[in-house]
């Protein structure tokens, strides 16, 4: 019930932000991407803010931003296929309760009438697991060849969580450093670097928002592979932004007479073929994996897919507009110095 209310609230927020953004947009040609930047900031916000709301709600109610998998909190997952019908949520629950675990989550997977069940419970030692399996086999024989079980002790879960925080922190530091080095020859290298980092944070927030939404709607859990997807998204996001910034950096001295926004706009349109072609190829592969590949990586690929999409989006619609806004002095507390810079470049 709570979830339904939350979903409605979140949807209302998203629609509200979008509507406000569209209503107050500047009337310019759709092709003038940079000039339309305000609208794109609102579109991003329409995804990020609901995500933050869900994560905040989750943090208050469960103490964690997402629904965490056993990788991080410890526990056991069973994927059981019975050879005959007969298993119900109740008799499976009774077996686990008999082994002292009465907080299990049971799901029937593979559609109605399927004999395949997924159970998530507490961490158990080998003997208990064997006892549970023996008990389950009295309901109906278990197909051991398609049985899958994973268990992680809480202490290992804690270690993985720590390592995950370290990995994210380290990735953020390294990527920021990398950006500054990559753009060291450009005037205001820090500015380019920070805008790329902002785009990266945007992507992280979008992907996290999508993940929390999927958790709310479909019960998706964050596991070690989700973290892998997140970090890979960071890599792709930076990759895209670098290519675009490279183009702007190249075009500035070539087109000194033009207004900055026009140069940037031209750069975007020049590199948009590349962005689209690259995206398409990555999507071909990812869609193929999602449609035909193994089911264990499907969630992972979906997050990667979403991340790649927002990675390309944010390079064009977040990183670059942000750079332009900064250079033009539109950002609060940030001094823009576009005039002096073009003059310096001309000299």
């Amino acid at each position: 019930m709570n979830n339904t209310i939350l979903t409605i609230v979140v949807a209302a927020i998203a629609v509200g932000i979008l509507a406000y953004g569209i209503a107050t947009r500047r009337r310019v040609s759709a092709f003038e991407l940079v000039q339309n930047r305000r609208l794109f900031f609102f579109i991003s916000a329409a995804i990020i803010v609901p995500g933050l709301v869900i994560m905040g709600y989750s943090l208050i109610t469960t103490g964690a931003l997402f629904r965490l998998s056993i990788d991080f909190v410890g526990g056991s997952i069973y994927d059981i296929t019975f050879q005959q019908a007969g298993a119900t949520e109740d008799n499976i629950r009774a077996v686990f309760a008999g082994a002292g675990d009465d907080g299990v989550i049971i799901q029937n997977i593979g559609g109605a009438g399927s004999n395949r069940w997924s159970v998530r419970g507490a961490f158990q030692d080998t003997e208990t697991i064997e006892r549970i399996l023996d008990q389950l086999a009295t309901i109906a024989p278990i197909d051991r060849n398609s049985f899958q079980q994973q268990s992680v002790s809480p202490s290992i879960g804690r270690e993985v969580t720590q390592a995950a925080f370290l990995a994210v922190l380290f990735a953020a530091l390294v990527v920021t450093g990398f950006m500054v080095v990559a753009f060291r020859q450009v005037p205001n290298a820090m500015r380019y670097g920070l805008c790329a980092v902002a785009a990266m944070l945007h992507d992280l927030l979008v992907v996290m928002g999508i993940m929390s939404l999927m958790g709310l709607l479909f019960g998706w859990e964050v596991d070690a592979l989700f973290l892998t997807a997140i970090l890979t998204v960071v890599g792709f996001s930076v990759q895209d932004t670098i290519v675009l910034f490279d183009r702007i950096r190249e075009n500035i001295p070539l087109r000194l007479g033009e207004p900055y926004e026009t140069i940037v706009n031209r750069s975007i349109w020049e590199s948009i073929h590349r962005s689209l072609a690259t995206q398409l190829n990555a999507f071909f592969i990812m869609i193929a994996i999602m449609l035909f590949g193994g089911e264990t990586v499907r969630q992972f690929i979906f997050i990667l897919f979403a991340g790649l999409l927002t990675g390309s989006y944010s390079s064009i619609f977040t990183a670059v507009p942000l750079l332009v806004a900064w250079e033009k002095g539109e950002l609060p507390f940030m001094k823009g110095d576009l005039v002096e810079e073009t003059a310096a470049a001309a000299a």
Partner: protein
Amino acid sequence: MSTHLRWLVFIGLLVVFCGYVVAPAAWKGVTPDAEICEVYRRDPTISTAGVRCDENVVLDLNNDGTPDFTLRISQNLGLDLVGGLRVLLRADIDTQAYAPEDLQSAMRETANNINRRVNGLGLTEATIQQQGTNLLLVELPGVRDREQAVSTIQQTALLEFVDFAGLGAVTLDYEGRSILTTEQLALAQQRGTGVDDVLLQRQRDPSGNPFSTVFTGAILARASALLAPIQQGGLPVWHIAFEIKPEFQEAFANYTSSRTGEPMAIVLDGEVISAPTIRQALSDGGIITGDFDEDSAKRLALQLQSGALPIPLTVEGADEVGATLGQVSVERSIRAGLIGVFVVLTFMVVYYRVPGAAADLALIVFVLINLALFKLIPVTVTLPAITGFLISIGTAVDGNILIFERIKEELRAGKDLQAALDAGFHRAWTSIRDSNLSTIIIGLILFFFGQTPGASIVSGFAITLILGLFVNLFTAVIVTRTFLYLFAHLGRQTLATRQWLMGI
């Protein structure tokens, strides 16, 4: 042109080599299921009489029967693909009993003990890795009986002192072999398992009886490796000093005095690890001398110590994957990969025409090199690893796209074909390098995250992704360039007059 020609020859050779490596084992006449191969895997020094048990390429240049050069080729499939059991164990090492500098070796010894035990189960493909400071990750492909496997692994080491009196010169033959002893039979009786296959395979004494166990590790108080002179004024040599617990000293004295001059075997989990000769009657302890260096002395001391003070192992995590599930995953992944690659190949040639064809050839080379590297390094192929590889295929063409878009721009700006090609490759390089580098850095961070116990599936993805990106730096630039210049050279007239062939 000559540089491109040289590259072409190099790429050709590379493709032939990678093609050979990648080719399925069956095509090369490898029959890993042959009976002799079972023996060979236990003891790789034996001759297999012409039967090929692995894909290794062995070069014997001077025909003396010993290989001068061995190229290891093997396809390692991960547990999630072949099915089996993975167990993460924590070794609760008693820090009182082991010196801090010995902790590392104690872990290694524990891993060796586990290895010996799982080998006893007939699982030759088991892998054991240390993770973190005191964790061991044991992978047992194909294991069905989980309880038996885990209890075998968790068994505390059984250290026995076995009577080898009267064996004389044959003693040496038993070193490193597994023998059957009275204590093992008694234990089997106690556990109610009886004489199982494992015990049946162990060797009996020359008259066909089990060897008789005189003491177990329980009599040992401690054992340590020392570098000191054994005789007054002698040179320092490595040896092992051990102490017997007070309550066993009398029995030990009685036994050693009755068997002076005879060998006594030290047996760990059934395997004879040493068979020193009793030189004199001993009571509260003694030393073991022999041809020891630092490593072997410390190792034996640790083996004795771990037999005396067993290191308990607790299960911290386990994964069990049914065999069929793995098979389905393999088939699905291969199908997904083939479909994905086919669509990418089609897209490139439709969208970029001639350059697209060059990129397609480069992509095929890319796939070949990667698959060959997986078998050469070797990379353990898991589902995340396959996914990483497929993702790297998706991004592999990115470099080509950057180059081709540049070339198109240059052509539109009115440059001739040759100049446009040169400019395209030259100007796209920085972008390609920087963007690949950023993903490689992230891949490295992922790889290190994957070293955390419990997150090991991540490293498979990271490894294939990083490999893919490195190979891509080569194929996207050099291989594509070689093919494209070749096409441009062959069809100069046509390409110059029909610009649509260049994708414009």
